[in-house]
Structure formats: structure tokens, C-alpha cells
């Protein structure tokens, strides 16, 4: 099942790249730079999804105390950090020719950078605690606090006057149609599948690492 999701995700990404770079037309205002829209918003959406799943499974861990929930939470956070960094990087690559700068302290950009810092902190916290129970509990609490930044990121373009453009798709009159809309949709679906595959594999690795860690501790204690 997981491998089938991976294959579908890979196929979707290849399709998105072919349509995004080849079939779709350039924009009247943005020219070829519009092609980055098939990559950047899907990365941003999967970042929200990844950190939302981190918080959800963190809450489930606090409730049920099952290690499996902590493993999924940790896996999703790590994948989310990669996706969030790529969201910022692709946005910066689009911003340089459009705004004339690689970075500006715009509300959307700043709140996204804060989101990256918060979840990088989550990963650092996990590295710093040896006891698995305390590590899972404290990181779950941090995830529940950090996830509050997501609505701030999403609504920042409405709450403040920003350089970042308004939503293209999530509005009563979507500003995209035809092959461009279908390519963007394919980008969203395939990036979601890639996220699910990466998180499932990373959670399996996390479980194996935690198992190896506990066996090593048992062996070390028995040898004393």
C-alpha cells in the first residue's frame, strides 16, 4: 500500500513537471515565472498538512500514550521541516525576479519562517531528551503550541497589507482555469501523496530506531 502511494506520487510529480514546464502557457503578466505556481503552493499545503498531522498525533499521544502516535508525529514533523524549507526557497526564487529581492520581512514570509524555526526547534528538542516518554510528551506539547502559527501564516495575507499575492484558488472567483488549474490540482494531489509516502517510511524508520535504542539500553544494562 505504502509503495503504491509512492509510485502514484512519483508519477504525479513527473506529470506535474511535464505539464508545468511544457504544456501550460506562460502568464500574460508573470510570463514563465507562473510555472513555479505548480510547485510552490503544493509545497505550502503539504507543510500545513505535515505540521497539522504532527500536532494531531501529538495530541493523540498525550491522550492514549501509545508510542506509535509519537513516531508518526515525529516523522511528520521532520518531513514538514523539509517541505517548509522548500516552500520558503521556491518562494524566494519566485520573489527575486518578481519583487527584486530574495527576501523581505513580509507577514506571510515572516510567519512561515517562524513556522520553520518552531518545528526545527521541535526536532532539536527531541534530540535533546533521552527518556522516550518525556521526549514524546514534551515534543507533543511543543507541537500543539507551534501549530497555532499555521492559521497566522494562512490568513496573514488577509490580516496585514502584504507583498505576497492573495489566494489564487481558495476564493469565490478562482483566478486560474483550464490546463493551468488542472496542473495545479495535479501538483497538490501528487505532493500530498509524496508527503504520505515520506511520512509512512520515516515513521517506520523512527519505530525501528526507537526499538534499537531500547534494545541497546537493555544490553548495556545487562552487561553492567
Amino acid at each position, binding site marked *: 500500500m505504502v509503495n503504491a502511494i509512492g509510485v502514484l506520487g512519483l508519477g504525479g*510529480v513527473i506529470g506535474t*513537471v511535464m505539464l*508545468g*514546464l511544457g504544456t501550460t502557457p506562460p502568464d500574460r503578466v508573470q510570463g*514563465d*515565472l507562473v*510555472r*513555479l505556481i505548480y*510547485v*510552490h503552493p503544493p*509545497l505550502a499545503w503539504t507543510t500545513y498538512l505535515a505540521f497539522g498531522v504532527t500536532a494531531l498525533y501529538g495530541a493523540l499521544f498525550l491522550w492514549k500514550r501509545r508510542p506509535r502516535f509519537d513516531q508518526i508525529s515525529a516523522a511528520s514533523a521532520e*518531513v514538514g521541516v*523539509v517541505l517548509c*524549507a*522548500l516552500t520558503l*526557497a*521556491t518562494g524566494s*526564487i*519566485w520573489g*527575486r*525576479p518578481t519583487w527584486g529581492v530574495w527576501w523581505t520581512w513580509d507577514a506571510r514570509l515572516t510567519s512561515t519562517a517562524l513556522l520553520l524555526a518552531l518545528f526545527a526547534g521541535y526536532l532539536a528538542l527531541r534530540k535533546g531528551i533521552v527518556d522516550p516518554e518525556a521526549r514524546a510528551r514534551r515534543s507533543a506539547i511543543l507541537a500543539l503550541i507551534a501549530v497555532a502559527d499555521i492559521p497566522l501564516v494562512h490568513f496573514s495575507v488577509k490580516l496585514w497589507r502584504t507583498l505576497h499575492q492573495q489566494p489564487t484558488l481558495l476564493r469565490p472567483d478562482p483566478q486560474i482555469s483550464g490546463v493551468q488549474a488542472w496542473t495545479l490540482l495535479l501538483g497538490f494531489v501528487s505532493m500530498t501523496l*509524496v508527503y504520505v*509516502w*515520506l511520512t509512512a*517510511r*520515516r515513521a*517506520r*524508520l523512527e519505530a*525501528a*530506531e526507537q526499538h*534499537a*535504542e531500547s*534494545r*541497546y539500553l537493555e*544490553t548495556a544494562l545487562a552487561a553492567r
Partner: protein
Amino acid sequence: MNYVFAGYALTLGALALYAARIVLAERRLRERPSEEAPS
């Protein structure tokens, strides 16, 4: 188009490297003797 290619190459490259890291770490863990300390 250079900015567009850079954006696509960075995204695909980073995701491919990250996926490879997960798969290789899993393989390494499977092949390691159980008493060895986790890295």
C-alpha cells in the same frame, strides 16, 4: 526560465535526497548488529 528551472531542480533534488536518506537509514539499521549503539 532560469529561475523556474532552479525552483523545480531544488524541489525535486531535495525530495529525492531526503527519500534516499530515509531508505538508506532503514537499510543500515536492518543490517546492524542489535548490541551496537544507535547513531
